[in-house]
């Protein structure tokens, strides 16, 4: 069974990665936001720098802010971004 999700990156993350969205097939051991971050951090230096835990990264699932232990389901829209600075 394939767990496909859509991932968006915003602001500083988008600039560092040089793209804003991708489809990701979740490995079977990746079920939470925290696990997805670890998975992404393994992609290389830029990714490790962003998702390795040194930087404050917030996440949303299907347009709602979530914590690190939030469960990701197949078909979800996941987003990663820096702390927000609106207003």
């Amino acid at each position, binding site marked *: 069974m394939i767990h496909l999700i859509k991932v968006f990156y*915003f*602001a500083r993350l988008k600039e560092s990665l040089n793209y804003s969205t991708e489809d990701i097939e979740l490995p079977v051991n990746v079920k939470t936001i925290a696990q997805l971050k670890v998975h992404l951090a393994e992609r290389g230096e830029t990714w490790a720098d962003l998702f390795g835990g040194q930087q404050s990264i917030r996440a*949303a699932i299907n347009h709602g802010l979530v914590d690190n232990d939030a469960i990701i389901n197949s078909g979800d829209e996941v*987003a990663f971004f*820096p702390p*927000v*600075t*609106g*207003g």
Partner: protein
Amino acid sequence: MVHMGVRVQTEDFDVGAEITAMRLSSANIGAVVSFVGQVRDLNDGDNVDSMFLEHYPGMTEKALAEIIAQVKVRWSITDALIVHRVGELKPQDQIVLVLVATAHRQEAFEACECIMDHLKTDAPFWKKEQTQHGLRWVEAKTSDEDARHRWKSTT
């Protein structure tokens, strides 16, 4: 409430027209409190020439609508509106408008301030400034997190 009272737009807004429309919508309204944010020409000691406001379409509207919904549970509010601009802005451009209309003044003040505090931490906007030192992303402030948490302790 399906995103009622929430607008995310590149265009400017007319604060007087918004206040008056809300005020006249009900003779039960005794107080309208408004917050207008404007882009300052100085941030963290540097001159700001312009800024770009990025956001997360879809989530932004949902986050703002949820902030209003939460505030409506806590205070007796006749109406509320959030207008937030995105895209390129210059110093002294209007950036955000929050309006709250109530029968009695204290509720309007508290609800309006509570909306702004939550907007600062929960709505997916990011500012990038053009200063004399080049482009930079604005860093989130811990004081904004603190301001938001004020509203929890008294619920």
